[in-house]
């Protein structure tokens, strides 16, 4: 077991950057997959599609197959994504209204949704919309997106900024959805959620299972061998 004065989650040599977490999540998206990426950090996943594969991105405000932001000054502010950022279209795009858009979500037509998280519980519960009762609550499409996609994944730091586990036995923050998450890509590991348990699939080679368990708020189960989490410099 590696012992170090500095907690592992603060050591940049044993931690993926956000770009690297996004890269790892992108590797699991099949060619032709229909994908919704949550606002913010999850949007980075679109940059790292493997060569030869093309995912089709859905934004809940009514576009399929949108692309990068246009050059500054060339924005059409009717052509935005769910984060209200200007986007462009790829060939084969389509527009539709909000009810049709959420029919795609709720009806199980998306292959993958990738969201951020405050907490993920071992039974698949997700908390990602508010941390307490103060301030102005805002939910957007988060509670819809956690239902319907064939795979609903989270990308996240493994622990909070002050070192608290984000993968927990039970969420303490208000829930976004119950039993909805199937896979979590963190700064340190790739973990599936199966039968109300965290099942470890990949971890950084530089850390031990015990070190990872110590950073995790619920028991990590094994189901066969654990692969090394290997990500390029980005």
């Amino acid at each position, binding site marked *: 077991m590696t012992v170090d004065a500095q907690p592992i989650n603060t050591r940049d040599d044993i931690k993926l950057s956000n770009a690297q977490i996004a890269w790892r999540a992108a590797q699991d998206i099949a*060619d*032709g997959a*229909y994908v919704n990426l949550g606002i913010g950090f999850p949007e980075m996943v679109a940059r790292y599609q493997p060569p030869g594969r*093309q995912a*089709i991105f*859905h934004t809940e405000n009514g*576009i*399929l*197959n949108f692309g990068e932001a246009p050059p500054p000054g060339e924005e059409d502010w009717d052509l935005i994504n769910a984060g209200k950022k200007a986007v462009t*279209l*790829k*060939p*084969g*795009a*389509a*527009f*539709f209204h909000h*009810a*049709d858009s*959420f*029919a*795609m*979500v*709720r*009806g*199980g*037509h*998306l292959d993958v949704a990738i969201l951020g998280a405050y907490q993920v519980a071992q039974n698949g519960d997700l908390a990602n919309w508010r941390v307490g009762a103060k301030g102005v609550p805002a939910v957007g499409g988060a509670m819809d997106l956690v*239902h*319907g996609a064939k795979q609903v994944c989270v990308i996240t730091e493994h622990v909070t900024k002050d070192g608290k586990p984000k993968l927990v036995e039970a969420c303490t923050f208000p829930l976004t959805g119950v039993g909805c998450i199937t896979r979590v890509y963190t700064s340190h590991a790739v973990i599936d959620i199966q039968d109300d348990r965290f099942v470890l699939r990949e971890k950084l080679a530089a850390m031990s299972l015990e070190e990872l368990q110590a950073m995790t708020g619920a028991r990590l189960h094994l189901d066969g061998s654990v692969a090394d989490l290997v990500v390029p410099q980005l």
Partner: protein
Amino acid sequence: MDKTIGSAAEAVSGIENGMTIMIGGFGGSGAPIELIHALIDKGVKNLTVINNNAGNGRIGIAAMIDAGMVKKMICSFPRSSDPRAFTDRYLAGEIELELVPQGTLAERIRAGGAGIPAFYTPTAYGTELANGKPIAEFDGRHYVQERWLKADVAIVKAHLADTYGNLTYNKAGRNFNPLMCMAATRTIAQVSKIVSAGGIDPEHVVTPGIFVDGVVEIPNPQQEEELIRAGVAYA
């Protein structure tokens, strides 16, 4: 990614005995005759078929019924100018019928596609078609609870497709087709022409490609009404 399928036979190759199949069209308008006939050639049995009608003459769904492929029809109007195929089997007790009001049929299919397991409608309240269904009162009026409809496969007819499966339709041939695209595990569209991605204006797409799994080009599709007037039988 290219959703093009080379032939009608290949398009229906995944349809198996016992499946529930949505078939687009309202009468002959928007009816995927070539895909239906390819399915007859394949020769599956014990199908549950969802369509507004129950076939006409000796072609299309009527020919499926004649071929003994259909165990049950879910439809609103099993009558036509020549309804023998369904009528004879129904009166002989050889085919089941679930009769659904047309608007309820459309909404149940949309609900299946939209992940809505049940909804309330005023339609059929107080009639025999609401027998056995939950009733609820909202704002002083009574409504019938209806459940979603889904299918294993939908076969539909559209006008244009691009290679991503985005579809447009021809006039009132639209009808149930866009809804059925949403509500099946696998959706196959026959279209008059397949264009490259970008060949359909994103503003004019009626069915976004996410709802479509395969498209097959049938350049000059047959119209049920013309076949019936010509006395054609498919067997």
